[in-house]
């Protein structure tokens, strides 16, 4: 997993609430046995017409946002299916951070496993950043994970909260499984204890 420390980039505005993972990556693209290559189908049904032509109004088709690295989105982003194809598609497109008031639980966790930072801010701060995002290349948003700040185009810095363990893993690009395997003695001990207490499991 790629490290995430600082990011300065253009943000694409997606002011819709309840953007679900079916919108982010429709099911026909889940028939892959790889993690890569999904970026071209990110937001497929909003981004292309039935013939595969780009829909010019969709934000990621506008010239200013083709290289966006940040999304500013409406409430409850990533609701619905557990498909990790959603963060895989975002990452493959080049998105490294999302800013919203709230996320669905599974999507939120999936982001951290893929080097994407989902930032939660209060509605009035998301509104400021949404306005910045609407300015396209005229406004860059800066994210500093170490100091947990998002800086708007006018220099105002907003502080965000993030779980210390998730932050540590993201800053260092750490593999969860390797970390957990270092605790295999604790897992062994738990299994011994649990199989005595609940042998039917």
């Amino acid at each position, binding site marked *: 997993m790629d490290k995430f420390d600082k990011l300065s980039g253009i943000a694409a505005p997606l002011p819709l609430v*309840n953007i679900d993972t079916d919108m982010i990556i429709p099911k026909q693209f889940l*028939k892959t046995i790889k993690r890569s290559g999904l970026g071209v189908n990110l937001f497929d049904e909003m981004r292309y017409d039935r013939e595969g032509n780009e829909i010019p109004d969709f934000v990621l088709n506008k010239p200013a946002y083709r290289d966006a690295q940040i999304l500013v989105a409406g409430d409850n982003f990533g609701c619905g299916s557990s*498909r990790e194809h959603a963060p895989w598609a975002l990452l493959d497109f080049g998105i490294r951070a999302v800013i919203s008031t709230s996320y669905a639980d599974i999507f939120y*966790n999936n982001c951290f496993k893929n080097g994407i930072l989902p930032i939660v801010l209060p509605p009035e701060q998301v509104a400021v950043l949404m306005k910045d995002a609407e300015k396209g290349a005229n406004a860059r948003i800066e994210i500093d994970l170490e100091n947990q700040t998002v800086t708007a185009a006018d220099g105002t810095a907003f502080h965000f909260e993030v779980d210390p*363990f998730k932050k540590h893993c993201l800053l260092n690009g750490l593999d969860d499984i390797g970390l957990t*395997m270092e605790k295999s003695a604790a897992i062994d001990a738990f299994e011994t204890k649990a199989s005595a207490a609940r042998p039917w499991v």
Partner: protein
Amino acid sequence: MSPKTLYDKIWDAHVAHEAEDGTCLLYIDRHLVHEVTSPQAFEGLRMANRKVRAPEKTIAVPDHNVPTTTDRANAATMTEDSRIQVEALDKNAKDFGINYYPVSDIRQGIVHIVGPEQGWTLPGMTVVCGDSHTATHGAFGALAHGIGTSEVEHVLATQTLIQKKSKNMKVEITGKLRPGVTAKDITLSVIGATGTAGGTGYVIEYCGEAIRDLSMEGRMTVCNMAIEGGARAGLIAPDEKTFAYIMGRPHAPKGAQWEAAMAWWKTLYSDDDAQWDKVVTLKGEDIAPVVTWGTSPEDVLPITATVPAPQDFTGGKVDAAQRALDYMGLTPGQKLTDIAIDTVFIGSCTNGRIEDLRAAAAILKGKKKKDGLRAMVVPGSGLVRAQAEEEGLAQIFIDAGFEWRMAGCSMCLAMNPDQLAPGERCASTSNRNFEGRQGYKGRTHLVSPAMAAAAAITGHLTDVREMM
């Protein structure tokens, strides 16, 4: 000892390691696997030369991609990419030595129907799957939730998940349900009341007389959609109905182990003075048969209502409602019962169990679907299908003009050939009415099985109570 919720009790019994900041390794008792969200996880194991730590606790079944037509043994019924995913699961199950129900096995079906049916899901367990509807298993008093593919790989390798504890939310449904009102109407009504993010950060325990009165099938329907309300998991405390459902199933404990298990299972309830972070109460008698009008499960109304207008909402929901109305092709003020439909889908992990088929068949018996309407029943497992045939339900569906299909996820998410065409409108017993969910530009109205059957007869959304 301080009072605990059911969630607290299950959580405490599964913490294998706790770091100073409260990050825990939660031990996983059952790991369910399907073909769509697992190939990258198994590939990850291979690349790192890792094994499945507890293959005996890992159960795999292909369900999302599989065709549900009776000729599906013919490989040509599957697209190549679907076939590759199913074959990858065949190979991964074999290579890693995990429990497996292939497409050809009568026990094959939707993973969340197969798990309980085979007795893999038991009270007090932790159950995960790379599928958000894992919440279904909470009906047994098991802590069950969906995970992403990276977490699937983590569980395969370590039999644990890195977790922080969620908050406790109680959803109480008091009193009795009125005739024609089902578990599906309860769970949709709760989402209507709390919103799709109302449960975010919580584990919900459903309780109250109306929940206790539900069968195990009904309880699974309620917990299944906990995720649609944003919750990590839904739970219902086990009781005599739970134990009766489990007893004698292939992987349920037997003999002395059954007695030992029962002794623990009977302690699995929330203490009277347990602390709740959020409480929602609905009166059972206030719940009506409901239907969704929009593109989020929270867009739900009693069937007697009319289509709302965007200005009925506030904040970001105003634009979302307008978008939903445009997508769904509906006009504010239109009666929901005036909405004509093209397709009826009965099935899914929400409503593909035997009781769901009985409820739909009770409405359809001796009747015919409306001419020109497409209607299909997709049983949740091969065993549900066999039981429905034995009970004569299959014949009722066939006589009513329904297609009688093989088991799978089918049109719930339309990864197999069962899809809506653009603009086509469906009364569906599934769980998501998202844009494009059942097919590109397809329009979904979520309903109970009885309501779906009623709509099939009339050709429009219908109040099932008028047919009872």
